[in-house]
């Protein structure tokens, strides 16, 4: 059975535009709650009632989503939701940024062996990547990182959930200064 708190969380999820965080839920409820537990209970309830929606843990928050089996119908009705897939070059650049962040454009170009300027602009426009600070050294180039929207787009909770990041890290273990502090914490 759902408690009034569950129903409030449900209402918050329905009205939220971005993933709901624990802080937001506590603020709205005016009390300290474990949103993760409440979400699990809500998801159990959704499973039992064969609800067309469920709560996904994404971008360090929670978001109410339709279940994948309804995708064809939703897509048919809202054609704009049939997302345009990212180009191969965009994905390549994004992969480099995601696994090696923060990186400069020169780093990306060096790995891909091609100029990535236009691709990088597209990724910034799509709010998948953002410039965060500058690298010390000649020219003080901009450093690029992935955004919370990147996590949402790929259905990841944190950047640590990227598949195979350990293998990638092992590959660059000799260049430890390039690894993300966040990634180090996951070890």
């Amino acid at each position: 059975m759902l408690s009034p708190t569950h129903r409030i969380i449900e209402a918050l999820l329905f009205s939220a535009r971005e993933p709901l965080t624990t802080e937001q839920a506590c603020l709205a409820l005016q009390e300290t709650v474990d949103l993760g537990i409440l979400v699990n209970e809500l998801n159990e309830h959704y499973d039992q009632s064969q609800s067309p929606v469920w709560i996904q843990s994404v971008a360090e928050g929670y978001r109410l989503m339709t279940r994948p089996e309804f995708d064809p119908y939703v897509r048919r009705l809202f054609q704009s939701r049939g997302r345009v897939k990212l180009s191969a070059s965009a994905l390549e650049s994004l992969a480099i940024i995601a696994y090696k962040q923060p990186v400069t454009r020169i780093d990306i170009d060096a790995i891909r062996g091609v100029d990535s300027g236009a691709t990088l602009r597209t990724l910034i426009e799509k709010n998948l990547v953002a410039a965060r600070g500058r690298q010390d050294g000649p020219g003080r180039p901009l450093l690029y990182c992935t955004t919370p929207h990147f996590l949402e787009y790929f259905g990841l909770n944190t950047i640590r959930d990227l598949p195979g990041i350990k293998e990638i890290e092992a590959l660059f273990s000799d260049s430890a200064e390039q690894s993300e502090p966040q990634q180090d914490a996951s070890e």
Partner: protein
Amino acid sequence: MSYNVKLNVFEGPLDLLLFFIKRDEINIYDIPIADITREYLTYIGIMESLNLHIAGEFIVMAAMLISIKAQMLLPRQVNQEAEETEDPRTELVAMLLEYKQFKEAAMRLRSLEEYQARYHAVQAHNPTTDFDPDLFLTDVNLLDIGRFFKKLLDKMPRPTYYQIETIKTTISQQSQIIRALFENRHRMRFSEIARRLKNRIEVVVTFLAILEMIRAAEISVSQKTVFGELWLTRKVQEPAHVIANS
């Protein structure tokens, strides 16, 4: 030798080289540089023959391949300090391996993208703090728009026009008419005159004419009851000097 390569599929020279390596099942650590350079240059030739713009990166890679090939043809320097001489392909191999890793990572991102695309967020439209109700019209029909338009028109400062007409009726003219109406009678009802009056101005002027005639002692006015009929009585004097007065 026929080439069955899809153009524009390659993201760059490294991608093209990886394609050759995969297709020919080449050991990435022992790349036959002579063969792969020939393949690579042939591909660039195809691009040229198709008048495709060849990005500078492809030329740079061609130069690198030729340079490696040249180094491999040269007799190896006997290096006594190092146990092994460095393979001129090392740098290229490192580049290919690094690129290959990220190409594979990109493919994993692709599958995540496809997986996540099947979920649709329950989307709420948040009212923003700078919400301006005037900018949003909800449930509006044509009638509402018409009503708003009218409201707007009503609020507008209306230009007001006053038409000033020259009053053609004159006091002397009306006096003449009154005199003519008397004919040979001495008394006459006001309503008899009023019947002939067409507009407000004529009424006003006729009244003024009557007052003037009273002032000139040409006529006198009497009324038996309040709001009752007005009686105009002609005096027997000659009206000549009255006309001169008016």
